[in-house]
C-alpha cells in the first residue's frame, strides 16, 4: 500500500506494534498494523475480544497505559504529525479537540459528582482556550480549577464559566450541544447528574461532549454494547447523522459485524492482533475474502434453525504471548495450505480498496 501524503488522509498508521509486558510474559497485542483513515468516513473495526481493536483505539488517542504497554515499532501520523514521538503535554493538545473518544460504559466515563451541563461546558471551554492559543496546565483539570472553593475570587461553588456574561454564552452553547444529540428538553437535562439519566441519554451526553470540541476524528469503542437494541439503533443513527453535520471521521470499534454493516462505509476485520481484511462495506459483505471474515459472517444467526444450521469456527484464538509462525488463523482455517504454517501472509491490496492478508489471494 502506498503511503502517499494524500490531502484526503486524516490518519496514517504504519507498522504499529504494541506489546503488553509483564514480568512473566510479553503479549503482542498489535502486530505491524497498517491502516489509513480518510476525512469524513465511517470506519468500523470488527473483531472478537482480544483481537487488539481496543488497543489500536487507545494508541491513537494516546491513552494506553505505558507500561505495561509498549510501542515496539511504527508510527501514527495524524495530519503529518507523528503522534508516537510527541511528549505527553504536546499530545494533550490533540486529545479532545483533534481526536476524541467515547467509551463503552458512559456511567464510568462521566464524572458522577458534576452536572452533565457543566461537563459539556468544560469541553467547550477547553476548545475555546485551545483555539485562543492558551496553554492549559498539564495535569490540572479545568473543572478542578473552576470548582476550587478556597479562592477569594470565586467564593461560590459554581464554576467560573457558569457566572457572568461568559456563563450565558456557554449555557447557550451547551444547550446547542445537547440539542444536536437530539435530547428532549435540554433545559432540564443540563442540570441533571449522570445517574439521573438513562443509558441512552448518557451515551448521547458523551457524544455531545466529544463533538463539542469539534474533533476531526471520533473514536467510539463499543459505544452501544451496553445499550438495548432500540436505544442502540437511536445512538448509531445519531452518530451517522452527526458525522456529516460536524464533518468528522468516525472510527467505530465493535464486535458485531451486523452493526458495522448497518452504519460503516468501510469495514476492517482484525484477528489476534492482525488486520486480516479491509474493504468497503459493500465489497466486504458481497464478497468477503479472508476465511476468518467468511467464518465470522456464517456465525451470525439469520433465520431459524429449520432453514439453516450455523457453521461455527472451530477451535479458539491462539495465545498471543507465544510467538506465532505463519498465519495466526491457520489452526482454524478450512482452506489451510502448507505455506500458511511457515510464512506470515502480508496485507495486500488484491482488488481496488480491498486489502486481504491471505495466501489464497496472490503472493
Amino acid at each position, binding site marked *: 500500500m502506498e503511503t502517499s501524503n494524500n490531502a484526503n488522509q486524516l490518519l496514517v498508521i504504519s507498522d504499529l506494534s504494541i506489546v503488553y509486558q509483564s514480568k512473566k510474559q510479553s503479549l503482542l497485542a498489535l502486530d505491524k498494523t497498517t491502516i489509513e483513515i480518510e476525512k469524513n468516513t465511517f470506519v468500523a473495526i470488527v473483531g*472478537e*475480544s482480544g483481537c487488539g481493536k481496543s488497543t489500536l483505539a487507545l494508541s491513537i488517542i494516546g491513552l494506553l497505559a505505558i507500561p505495561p504497554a509498549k510501542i515496539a515499532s511504527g508510527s501514527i501520523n495524524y495530519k503529518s504529525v507523528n503522534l508516537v514521538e510527541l511528549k505527553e503535554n504536546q499530545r494533550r493538545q490533540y486529545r479532545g479537540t483533534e481526536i476524541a473518544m467515547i467509551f463503552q460504559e458512559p456511567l464510568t466515563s462521566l464524572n458522577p459528582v458534576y452536572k452533565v451541563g457543566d461537563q459539556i461546558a468544560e469541553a467547550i471551554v477547553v476548545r475555546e482556550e485551545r483555539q485562543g492559543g492558551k496553554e492549559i496546565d498539564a495535569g490540572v483539570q479545568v473543572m478542578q480549577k473552576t470548582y476550587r472553593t478556597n479562592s477569594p475570587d470565586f467564593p461560590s461553588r459554581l464554576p467560573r464559566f457558569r457566572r457572568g456574561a461568559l456563563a450565558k454564552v456557554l449555557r447557550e452553547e451547551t444547550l446547542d450541544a445537547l440539542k444536536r444529540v437530539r435530547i428532549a428538553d435540554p433545559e432540564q437535562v443540563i442540570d441533571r447528574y449522570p445517574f439521573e439519566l*438513562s443509558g*441512552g*441519554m448518557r451515551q448521547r451526553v458523551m457524544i455531545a461532549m466529544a463533538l463539542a470540541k469539534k474533533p476531526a476524528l471520533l473514536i467510539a469503542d463499543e459505544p452501544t454494547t451496553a445499550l*438495548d*437494541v*432500540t*436505544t*442502540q*439503533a*437511536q445512538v*448509531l*443513527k445519531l452518530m*451517522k447523522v452527526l458525522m456529516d453535520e460536524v464533518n468528522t471521521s468516525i472510527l467505530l470499534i465493535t*464486535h*458485531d*459485524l*451486523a*452493526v458495522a*454493516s*448497518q*452504519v*460503516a462505509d468501510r469495514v476492517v476485520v482484525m484477528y489476534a492482533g492482525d488486520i486480516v481484511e479491509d474493504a468497503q*462495506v*459493500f465489497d*466486504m*459483505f458481497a464478497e468477503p475474502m479472508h476465511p476468518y471474515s467468511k*467464518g*465470522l*459472517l*456464517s*456465525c*451470525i*444467526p*439469520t*433465520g*431459524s*434453525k429449520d432453514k439453516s*444450521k*450455523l*457453521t*461455527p*469456527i472451530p477451535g*479458539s484464538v491462539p495465545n498471543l504471548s507465544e510467538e506465532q509462525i505463519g498465519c495466526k488463523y491457520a489452526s482454524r482455517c478450512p482452506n489451510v495450505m502448507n505455506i500458511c504454517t511457515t510464512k506470515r501472509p502480508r496485507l495486500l491490496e488484491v482488488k481496488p480498496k480491498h486489502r486481504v492478508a491471505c495466501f489464497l489471494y496472490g503472493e
Partner: protein
Amino acid sequence: MESSSQDLDGNILVTKRLKKYYPIRRGFNPFSGGGQRFVKAVDDVSVNVPRGKTVAILGESGCGKTTLARAVTLLSPPTEGEIVFDGQNITKGKVNYKKIYREMQMVFQDPDSSLDPRLKVRQSVAEPCKGLLGKDEANINSMVMTSLKAVGLTEEHAERIPSHLSGGQKQRVAIARAIAPQPKLVILDEPTSALDASVQAQILNLLLDLQKNYNLTYVIITHNISVAEYLSDLLVVMYAGNVVEYGPSSSIIAKPRHPYTITLIASAPIPNPWKRNLLNTEIKGEVPSAINPPSGCKFHPRCPYAQKICSEQIPELREISPGQFVSCHFAEKTG
C-alpha cells in the same frame, strides 16, 4: 392468551396470571403515608411452554424477563398467580423442591459468577446431582462424565478450575451442570450474551444438539432477536412487565403485529449493508418506569398508532392470527 383454552397435557409449563411485585420502602420514616408502592416487574403473565419445544422470551433490559425466569424456578417465588409444572401446581401447598429441580434446571447469564471459582469442573457438575439424586459416588461420576462429554468437554477439563477455562468452555460447564440431573425443562438466561460471535455459534448449535438427544424443553431468555429466531419455536415478547405478543416465532418475525414488536425487530441490526433498516427506524422516548407505568397500554407514549383509548384501557391479549396473540387495540391495523 387464556390458558384454559389450551390443552394442558401438551404443555410442560403453564403460568397463569403470574405476578411478581417488589415492595419499595420510601425514605426512613415508617409513618410517612402514601400507601405501599411496588415495582411491578412481572405483571399478569400467562405463558404456555409446550413439551419438547423452545420458547424464547424476548425483551429489553428491565422488561421483567429475568424476573419471570426466577419466579418460574421459584428462586424468587411469585407474588400472585399459578405455575403448573409437569401437571402439578407448584405455587400451592408444600413444595417438594428436590423433585422440581430434578426436572427443572437453570443456566445463568454469567458463568463467571454462577460457577464456584474454587471447585473443579467435576465437583461443580456433581454438586446438583449429589443434592438431588443421592450420594452414589460411582453413579454420579458417570453422570458427570456423560454430561461433560455431551457438551464437548474432556476428562482433562473436568480437573480444571473455572479460571483455567475460556468463556465458551465455562458456559459449556454451566450447561453440563444443568443437564446432569437429566431434567425435562432447562431455563437459560441469556446463555450467549457474554460470548464472542464464533463461540456463540458453537453454543447455539450445542444447545440444539442437546435438545435433540435428551428431548429437552427450553425456555430461553434473550434480548437478541436473531438468537431468539434461530433457537425458538415460540416467541414471547415482553414490555414493561407485560406480554405484548406471543406466538410461533416464524409468524411473529415475518409479520409482527404489536407496534413494540415491530420497532424491536426493525432495530435489530442485520448483517446486510444493502438493507439498512436500523437507520430507517423511528422510535421515540424511553422504557417507562416500572413503579409508575403509563395508564392503559404501557407502550402508548411511544406508539405511533396511539389513540385516546390506548391511554385509558389496558388491551387484552387477543388471537389475531392462528396461534398469534397480541395485546394491542389496533393490532389489525399495524404493520
